[in-house]
Every structure is written in structure tokens, then in C-alpha cells.
């Protein structure tokens, strides 16, 4: 450590601690300088300040020297005077003065207003956070992401669907028959567990693609820009800029998003944000969109899915405007401080780790919640025991009783209303239920002798390579001017469920259905999160207003569409 003690040209540097503290320092310096040992061993002023600050180590050392006790006592007396004058401890008063000086120097010498350089980040920000271009660019980016999700993952989606519907089903059936399992148990395993859980697991490849690109956007620093751009929009609707964080978390899952509203100071803003979060399409809804997108909208599936996300955001904005001007009237003008980090290329490790964490969460849910619900559903569809038609089961009867409510929206069938009823539990279950109601009773095709396990494994490997090849070609073909997808593969692959749905819905009623799924009552976990944060009244309000709004908009879509001749 270098110590500057000054010279004739440069006197020693001193911070002025103020007259009171300086008086105590001065008195102590005289005593220290007069001490035979201390004066030579220490810089007197430095030691005086440290003793006044109450440095325990130095007080002990000084007190141990001959005549040092008097200096320690004088320091204690000095501390007492400073404390009585400043109303705070002496060490804080001294540190306060020291930092006051540093703050003054920094203000004098640091020019924070000057733009030192116009970096790549600044150039990108001038476009990406532009008042007019920022929002359209965000929607365009999300469109590309969903296009990748639909078009690229369709190959893997088809592969998983074929593996679960083919070899896995054959192996489980063979194993259970070998164990002489009763017929009802084989049906539970095939029509309940594999049809239900499998229908959800089919979307894992699509979700991996979605999570991968969302992680890329987050870790590159782009999402922070989106928060900045959205802040202006949020304020227009009556929301605080900080609401963006829970809102965008809602695209993953509404439950952590509701808890994330704790970052907002105002309770009114927290309640309003929690009521809007479920309108952000969570990952659990994506399988519903993809199934219906592939079944009814073909090449336009990505556009429809992006449209649904945008519609969710727009409806949230409109609801916010209404709530902030009626029952949740409060304006929060607190500043939303958000640092815009420099853009950076995310590391492969960060990308894979974050993608894996999110995917794992979805798979674990499929293996637990959805598994239990699928088993429960199978029983409800099989009771009273021996029922011939699923429509006559307890589940079918309840679903049929609820079906007329959805008649004006164009999907008043017991299968559709049953899927929506179970969707209250978890949105992933909508697809799982449809798989059981539409595919559960289906007999698998038996064309020729069943392949051996070895043939199945070879086929799984070969079809995986073909899917990977198709996905890579499809990814590269997104680049303008590049077309690597063979003409015969242009049609987006369909899942077995997509094919089954095509016979029960029209494109218009399918769109009304996905609109309903987008908006209707949040899942039980989200409602209980709202209840635990704000009480059951707000949870009930959330469930009821979203159901009403969803029904109204689905009916509007179907009736106006029918009137315009889209039916």
C-alpha cells in the first residue's frame, strides 16, 4: 500500500470532517504526537480518526502502551461529543463526511451526461426500442418463434406421436397380456394413461423449441428491451411498467406470475396484474393451439397461434383499461427503473440449462398431475361399470349437460365441453381429455403381422433421423430464398388427434374453441395463487369474469363468422 504524506509542494491531503469532528481530531492528534511511541509509529491524524471511529484493534493497541489509556479515554470522550452533536454514532458521522467528499469529487469529475460512444448496442436499441417500430418488431419476432415451433417441431411431433401410438402402445399391451392383466386394466393403461399423458408428451419437442428460442431472446438481452417498449403501452392502459414482468412470466405459467406481482408496491396494481396474467397464453395452452392449428389451419397455423397470443395481449390491455377506470381505480406513476444490458450471445450451456429446466417442469407435470387426472378421467368415462358408450358414462353425462352452454359458440358437443371442464384443473388436460374422448376407444390399425421389438427400435431410430433431417431443412428454409423442404413434405404433419378433431369441428368453430381456451377461467393452481395473495373474492372474480368474457368472445367469433359465411 502506498501512503502519501505530502511534500513542500504538495501538502498532505485531508478531508475536512467538519468543525466538531475536526476539533476532536485536533485534540487527539496533539496527544498522539506527544506520545513517545505512537507519534513515530502512526500518522497521528489517521490514528486519531480511527480511534474516534472506535476501531477496536487500534484502541486495544493504544491502550496497551504506556500512557495510552489517557488517549483511549480522550477518544471515548471525543466520540461522545460527536454523537451528541450529530445525533448518530461517531463512526457513522465520520464515514458520512468521508463519503460526502467522495460524492462531491465524483460529481465534479465524472460527466455522466456525455455519450462516450455509439456502440452496436446503441444502434440496435435505436431500432428495437423505437417508439413506433419497437412493438411491431416484437410481434414479428414472436411470429418467427411460433413459425419455428409449429413448422420445425411438427416433424418431431409426428415422430413422438407415432412412437407413442405405435411401438409404446404395442409394448405395453404385449407386456400386460403376458402378465395376464384384466381387460379393464389394459384399457386403463392404453386408453387412459397412454392416450392422456401421451397426448401431452407429444408436444414436448414443440415446447423445447419454444423454450429454446425464448431463452435465446431472454439471455441475449432482447426481453429487457421488450419490457422497455411495453412500459409505454402498459402505462396507457393504466398498468405500472413493472407489471410487464409478471405478465411475461404468464406466458410460461400463471402461478409464479401471480406471485411475481409482489414486485409491485401498490395492492391495487397487484390485483389488476394478477387478473390479467391468465390472459397471457401459458405454455399449457400451446398444445391446444398446435393441435387445432395443424388440424384446421395448415400452413397458416403459425399465423393463427401468433394471432392468439396477440389477441390475449390486446384483451389484457382492454380489460386493464376498463378495470383501471372502474373497480381498480388508482394511478401509479412510480418510475420503472430497468437497466438495458448490452446485447450478448448466450452461451450454449446457459441455453441448454434453461431450456432443460423449463422442459423438465412440463414433463414432471405430465408425469404427475396429468397422469392422475388421466386415470381419474378413465374411471369417470368407464362408470357406471360396463358402460358401452363414453357419452353414457358419468363424465359423458356431466359434459353433455354442460354442452348446450357452448352451442352458440359452435362447439356444443359433450367431448368439447368435457375437455373444457377438465381444463379447469390444468390446461394441459384439455388435450389429454380430447385424446381420451376422441381416440381412447379407437382400435389401432392392424395391417399385417405386428413388428418385432427389434424392428420397432430400428424404425424409431430411422424415423428420428428422418424427423431431425426434416426439422433442419425446415429451419434453414425459414431464411428468405432458401427452400430445402421437398414438395411432397410441404404439408405440415398431423397428429392422430388433429385428424380426429377435423371430423368434429369446422375451421370457424375450431377458432371459436381456441379463443375460448385462450381466455376462459384460469386453472385451479392459478386461482389458488390469486386466493392466497388477495383472498377468495378476487379468485372468484377472476374465474367468473374470464369465463364470461371467453364465452362472449367465442360466441361473437362464431356468430359473426357464420353471418359472414365462414362456417
Amino acid at each position, binding site marked *: 500500500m502506498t501512503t502519501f504524506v505530502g511534500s513542500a509542494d504538495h501538502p498532505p491531503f485531508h478531508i475536512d470532517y467538519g468543525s466538531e469532528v475536526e476539533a476532536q481530531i485536533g485534540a487527539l492528534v496533539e496527544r498522539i504526537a506527544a506520545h513517545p511511541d505512537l507519534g513515530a509509529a502512526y500518522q497521528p491524524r489517521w490514528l486519531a480518526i480511527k480511534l474516534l471511529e472506535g476501531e477496536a484493534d487500534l484502541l486495544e493497541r493504544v491502550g496497551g502502551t504506556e500512557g495510552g489509556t489517557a488517549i483511549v479515554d480522550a477518544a471515548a470522550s471525543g466520540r461522545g461529543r460527536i454523537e451528541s452533536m450529530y445525533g*448518530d*454514532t461517531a*463512526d*457513522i458521522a465520520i*464515514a*458520512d463526511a468521508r*463519503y*460526502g467528499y*467522495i*460524492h462531491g469529487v*465524483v*460529481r465534479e469529475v*465524472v460527466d*455522466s451526461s456525455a455519450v462516450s460512444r455509439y456502440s452496436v448496442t446503441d444502434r440496435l436499441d435505436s431500432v428495437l426500442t423505437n417508439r413506433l417500430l419497437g412493438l411491431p418488431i416484437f410481434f414479428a419476432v414472436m411470429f418467427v418463434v411460433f413459425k419455428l415451433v409449429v413448422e420445425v417441431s411438427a416433424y418431431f411431433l409426428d415422430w413422438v406421436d407415432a412412437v407413442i401410438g405405435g411401438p409404446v402402445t404395442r409394448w405395453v399391451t404385449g407386456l400386460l397380456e403376458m402378465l395376464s392383466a384384466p381387460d379393464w386394466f389394459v384399457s386403463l393403461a392404453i386408453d387412459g394413461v397412454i392416450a392422456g399423458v401421451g397426448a401431452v408428451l407429444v408436444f414436448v419437442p414443440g415446447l423445447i423449441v419454444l423454450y429454446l428460442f*425464448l431463452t435465446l*431472446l*431472454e*439471455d*441475449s*438481452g432482447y*426481453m*429487457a428491451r*421488450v*419490457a422497455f417498449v411495453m412500459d409505454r403501452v402498459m402505462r396507457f392502459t393504466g398498468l405500472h411498467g413493472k407489471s*410487464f*414482468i409478471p405478465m*411475461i*412470466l404468464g406466458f*410460461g405459467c400463471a402461478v*409464479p406470475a401471480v406471485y*411475481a406481482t409482489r414486485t409491485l*408496491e401498490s395492492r391495487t396494481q397487484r390485483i389488476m396484474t394478477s387478473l390479467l396474467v391468465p390472459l397471457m397464453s401459458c405454455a399449457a395452452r400451446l398444445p391446444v393451439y398446435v393441435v387445432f392449428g395443424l388440424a384446421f389451419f395448415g400452413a397458416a397455423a403459425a399465423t393463427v397461434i401468433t394471432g392468439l397470443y396477440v389477441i390475449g395481449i390486446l384483451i389484457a390491455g382492454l380489460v386493464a383499461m376498463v378495470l383501471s377506470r372502474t373497480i381498480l381505480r388508482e394511478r401509479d406513476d412510480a*418510475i*420503472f*427503473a*430497468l*437497466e*438495458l*444490458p448490452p446485447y450478448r450471445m448466450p452461451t450454449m450451456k446457459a441455453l441448454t440449462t*434453461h431450456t432443460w*429446466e*423449463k422442459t423438465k417442469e412440463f414433463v414432471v407435470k405430465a408425469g404427475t398431475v396429468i397422469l392422475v387426472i388421466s386415470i381419474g378421467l378413465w374411471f369417470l368415462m368407464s362408470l357406471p361399470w360396463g358402460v358401452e358408450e363414453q357419452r353414457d358414462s358419468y363424465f359423458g353425462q356431466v359434459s353433455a349437460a354442460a354442452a348446450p352452454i357452448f352451442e352458440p359458440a359452435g362447439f356444443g358437443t359433450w367431448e368439447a365441453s368435457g375437455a373444457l371442464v377438465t381444463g379447469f384443473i390444468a390446461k394441459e388436460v384439455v388435450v389429454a381429455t380430447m385424446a381420451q374422448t376422441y381416440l381412447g376407444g379407437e382400435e389401432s390399425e392392424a395391417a399385417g403381422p405386428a413388428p418385432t421389438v427389434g424392428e420397432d427400435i430400428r424404425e424409431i431410430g430411422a424415423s428420428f433421423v428422418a424427423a431431425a433431417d426434416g426439422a433442419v431443412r425446415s429451419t434453414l428454409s425459414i431464411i428468405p430464398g432458401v427452400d430445402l423442404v421437398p414438395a411432397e413434405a410441404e404439408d405440415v404433419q398431423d397428429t392422430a388427434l388433429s385428424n380426429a378433431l377435423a371430423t368434429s369441428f369446422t375451421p370457424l368453430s375450431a377458432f371459436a374453441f381456441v379463443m375460448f381456451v385462450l381466455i376462459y377461467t384460469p386453472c385451479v393452481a392459478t386461482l389458488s395463487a390469486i386466493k392466497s395473495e388477495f383472498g377468495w373474492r378476487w379468485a372468484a372474480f377472476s374465474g367468473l369474469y374470464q369465463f364470461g368474457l371467453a364465452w362472449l368472445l367465442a360466441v361473437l367469433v362464431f356468430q359473426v363468422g357464420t353471418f359472414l359465411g365462414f362456417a
Partner: protein
Amino acid sequence: MLRAILSAIDEAGRPMCLADLSRDLGIDEAVLEGMLETLIARGRLRAIEYEAEDCTACPIKSGCFIMNDGVAKTYALPPDPETVARALPDFQ
């Protein structure tokens, strides 16, 4: 300066992050960090560091306003000894 920090947090009635304090008090963040460390060392302030996993799901963690050197951190006043004493079970 140091007392201004304590007053700002006391008035806010909630933990504050470095960026918020810097803006509210008009003090450079680098200078403020030293002040906060001094107050923490003297037991006048406590730093609340959030578990990293709480932030992993956050889409804007890279630009988070409470992030400080890669750690989500806010500053709060230590609990009032009388309040703590009241909250403790009576061992007598």
C-alpha cells in the same frame, strides 16, 4: 449521506435496490456501494440477497433493476430490536 440512505429506506417502508437508491439520492452507484457496505459493516443496514433460482424464470433478469453484480440484492433496515423481542417466544 449515510443518514440520507437510512432515511430513504425508512421512508420507502420496503427494501430498496442499488439502482433505486442511486436515482432517489442522486449518488453515483459506485460511491453508493461503498456507503452501503459501510452501513452493513456497522450493523445499520442489511443486504437481502435473493436465491438465484427465484430469478431463473424471469425473462428480464439480464436487465433486472435489483441485479447487482449478477446477484439480485436489495437493502433493508435491520429489524427493530423491540419488535424482534416481542416476536420471540416467552421462555420464562
